[in-house]
């Protein structure tokens, strides 16, 4: 009878041990969840994406034009070449941006509305002019914002 009592107490102790460990682990998870930092980006994401798009258009136009200067691209295909490369860069950037913000539970849509690029090849230089319009939409639980970005940029590269 005495041995049985001891075994019962041991069993109770073990059950209490598991109960306490489980409770502490649950509390720990809860405290960790409360520790998620507050995101202060909010509506400023629209401005960030706008700056990103503007900078990306300028960077890609300048560098793609520079790359064209090193290749033997005829005047007929120059505009198509620059236009398709800049469009592809912007589209890839738009997709990546949307994916990253979706990961954080925010809806960001970057829609490249219009791309007009005119480029010409002269004996000593290549000139490219881009007029690009991008629509940016942002949505989260309590905010919806839209903006239209129009960038007119010219790049001139000496051969």
């Amino acid at each position, binding site marked *: 009878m005495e041995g049985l009592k001891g075994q019962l107490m041991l069993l109770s102790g073990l059950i209490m041990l598991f109960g306490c460990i489980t409770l502490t682990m649950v509390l720990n998870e809860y405290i960790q969840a409360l520790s998620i930092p507050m995101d*202060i980006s909010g509506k400023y994401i629209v401005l960030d994406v706008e700056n990103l798009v503007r900078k990306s258009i300028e960077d*890609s136009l300048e560098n793609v034009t520079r*790359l064209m200067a090193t290749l033997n691209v005829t005047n007929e295909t120059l505009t198509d070449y620059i236009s398709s490369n800049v469009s592809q860069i912007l589209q890839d950037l738009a997709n990546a941006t949307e994916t990253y913000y979706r990961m954080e539970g925010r809806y960001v849509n970057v829609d490249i509305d219009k791309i007009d690029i005119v480029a010409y090849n002269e004996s000593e230089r290549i000139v490219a002019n881009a007029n690009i319009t991008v629509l940016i939409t942002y949505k989260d639980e309590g905010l919806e914002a839209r903006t239209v970005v129009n960038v007119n940029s010219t790049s001139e590269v000496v051969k």
Partner: protein
Amino acid sequence: MKGQTFTLEAILTAFIILVTLYYLIISFPLTNLQKVHITDDVYVRDVFNFLENKTLKESILCWNGKVVYGGASADDFNESFNCSTELKYYLKKLLDDKRFAYNIYVTYSSNGSLRELKFVYDGSPPPNAISLSKIVVIYDWDNGSIKSIVPDDFDSYLYNVLYVKVVVWRV
């Protein structure tokens, strides 16, 4: 027999208390828990808007993948970079000296999946920490040691797009 049972019970109780204490210690960050003032939000955002334009991309480009533990005040900060960077100067002047601690994480895409790297790590943030994100674009024409860590994930002249997440708190 009774004495042995009590001893065993005491050992179990001590074990439970130790485990509970251990979990409590690792759960609570030992930092100042005062509310971050609203002006801190504006200040931190301004700091990273300023850094984003040039310094942040330059530093990430020549980052060798070694985590910077302890922020800009760390002695071995420069060992994480293969070029001279102004990031240490600005982080120290604008955040460390103003009693801010911060973690910076860099996420990149690799074959459609996302991977996160610790860039600067100052410890576990408290519940009153604030966070913000910036996007850094790497093109094929950019050069730097980051290209040995981050793969070219696009068919265009875009090399990869990095999602830089910053977590800042008062110490």
